[in-house]
């Protein structure tokens, strides 16, 4: 599947040479290493975590790093390393689920707008513009508590606010692709609109969009941490990097370690995914320089 996509995007397979270029690019190598490290530590959090991330041990509260607790303990004496490892699971799941859902829904509406009747296009674009009018974090802060803090709410907000971005990209791509000769040929052969879009246009336009989406993963990771920090995200005692950061902020005068423990995994994750995304884009499609 990905090989076929890469073939269509770049006209050639992601051969060993492309992968070698990715690894030889210092940014790509660092990014890939960080992302692999993050995925492995999240997958095997249960095996790697030295303690139960929710086990409270008040006498051992707010300890600096030691052999027993590599990243120290929080205000309830919970092991911060264990909490950070499990926090990685939350960060990754929220980012991947949100990206996937936003892409799928954005694709549906984008294709509908791009290939559907004019009035439907106008309505969908207006709806996209309306959603994009809200500053995401501020909207989340307002409506999050109404739906109850938790992972579902975070994913719901992230998906709802990013659908318009993907929707617009799909719409523009479909409109551009509709002028292509192969589409005219298919129409001349009497093929129906929906079939052309799904069977023929989609495989042609989705590659670059997937790269754009992969570059949004760090944004979603940061948003999950941010929302949890604000109290509209994941709720304690579940572990999240944002919650560790929030604890760290509350006890910043007593110890710097909680802030460091909550921020280092978050920084490494966002840097890793950003570096990898940049390098991937350069390797697979040098033309696809994403404007900020």
């Amino acid at each position: 599947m990905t090989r076929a996509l890469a073939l269509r995007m770049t006209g050639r397979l992601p051969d060993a040479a492309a992968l070698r270029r990715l690894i030889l690019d210092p940014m790509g190598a660092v990014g890939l290493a960080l992302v692999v490290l993050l995925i492995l530590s999240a997958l095997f959090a249960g095996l790697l975590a030295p303690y139960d991330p929710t086990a409270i041990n008040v006498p051992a509260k707010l300890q600096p790093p030691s052999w027993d607790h590599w990243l120290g303990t929080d205000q309830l004496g919970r092991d911060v390393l264990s909490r950070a490892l499990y926090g990685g699971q939350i960060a990754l799941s929220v980012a991947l689920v949100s990206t996937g859902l936003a892409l799928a829904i954005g694709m549906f509406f984008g294709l509908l707008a791009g290939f559907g009747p004019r009035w439907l296009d106008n309505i969908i674009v207006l709806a996209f513009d309306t959603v994009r009018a809200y500053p995401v974090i501020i909207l989340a802060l307002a409506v999050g508590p109404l739906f109850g803090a938790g992972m579902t709410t975070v994913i719901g907000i992230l998906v709802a606010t990013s659908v318009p971005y993907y929707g617009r990209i799909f719409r523009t791509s479909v409109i551009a692709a509709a002028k292509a000769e192969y589409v005219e040929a298919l129409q001349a052969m009497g093929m129906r609109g929906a079939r052309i879009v799904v069977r023929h246009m989609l495989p042609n336009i989705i590659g670059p969009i997937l790269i754009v989406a992969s570059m949004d993963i760090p944004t979603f990771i940061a948003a999950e941490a941010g929302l949890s920090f604000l109290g509209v995200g994941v709720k304690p005692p579940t572990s999240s990097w944002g919650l560790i950061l929030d604890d760290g902020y509350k006890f910043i005068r007593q110890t710097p370690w909680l802030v460091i423990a909550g921020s280092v995994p978050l920084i490494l994750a966002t840097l890793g995914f950003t570096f990898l995304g940049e390098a991937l884009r350069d390797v697979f499609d040098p033309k696809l320089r994403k404007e900020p």
Partner: protein
Amino acid sequence: MLAYILRRIGLGVLVFLLAISTLYILVQAAPGDPASAMLGPRATPAIKAAFREKLGLDYPMPVQIFNYLTSVLQGDLGVDLKTKRPVIDTLAVHLPRTIELLAASLLLAACLGIPLGCMAAVRRNSVFDRAVGVLSVSLIAVPAVIIAIYGMLIFSAGLGWLPAIGAGEEGDLLSRLRHLILPAVAVGIGWVGYLARLVRASMIEVLSANYVRNARAFGLREPRVVYRYALRIAVAPTVTVLGIGVGIMLGSAVFAEIVFARPGIGKLMYDAVILRNYPVTLGAVLAATLILIVSTTASDILNAIIDPRFKESRE
């Protein structure tokens, strides 16, 4: 051009009306209804019913929306449940603080990002250029909340160089500025990276243009060519990102205001959400949405004026 500007403003107004109507429906339709939320768990059904009637929540939804829109357009955003004064007065105190923070952040981003991008483009493929590239990407990647907390950890709690909380003494410019530094860095530093990348890319394009070659052929000194002629053209695309930029910066401002307990829309909302002060929460979202819509509309219009081709690309 005038027709485009008017149409763009009309669209902005329409989107604003739709956005506040949607928000109203969302708040009413959410599982935790504002009446129960504001009155607390001990309110009896009779009290709730009276309260709903007082706020006009017993009308059909379209009527409610119409009433809400009418009062919003008249500047009536309800009463702040904490201070018992009109919400618009509360916003009038906090909104300028947020705008001040956004302006300082944009200034910081422009003052650092544009020269960095320009110098990187002039020394293309040098070590300096690569370093700016990695730095830009890193600045973009690190979330504002982390910069804010580290700023506080290092420069306030640790070294004690800069104040940790508040927005400074009213009327004391130096104190206000000192309080502005850390939050502005937290909000603006990511945009240093964005602007550096953007200016570098457009500068490289401009430096290979014919008129730059001509200027050099006429024997103009290199700094004059780069900074007087090329840079002026190369910074124009930064206007295109102003709209998106303000949206993201508003989010970052929430974190900076909360971390540094600095008055502003974000801090106001955060406190209002905890107190279930719904009119203020809604009012703050409205104000923030309005800032975003005005900035995207302005950025689109500026773009169309700078480069008329832009109009068609949006249509």
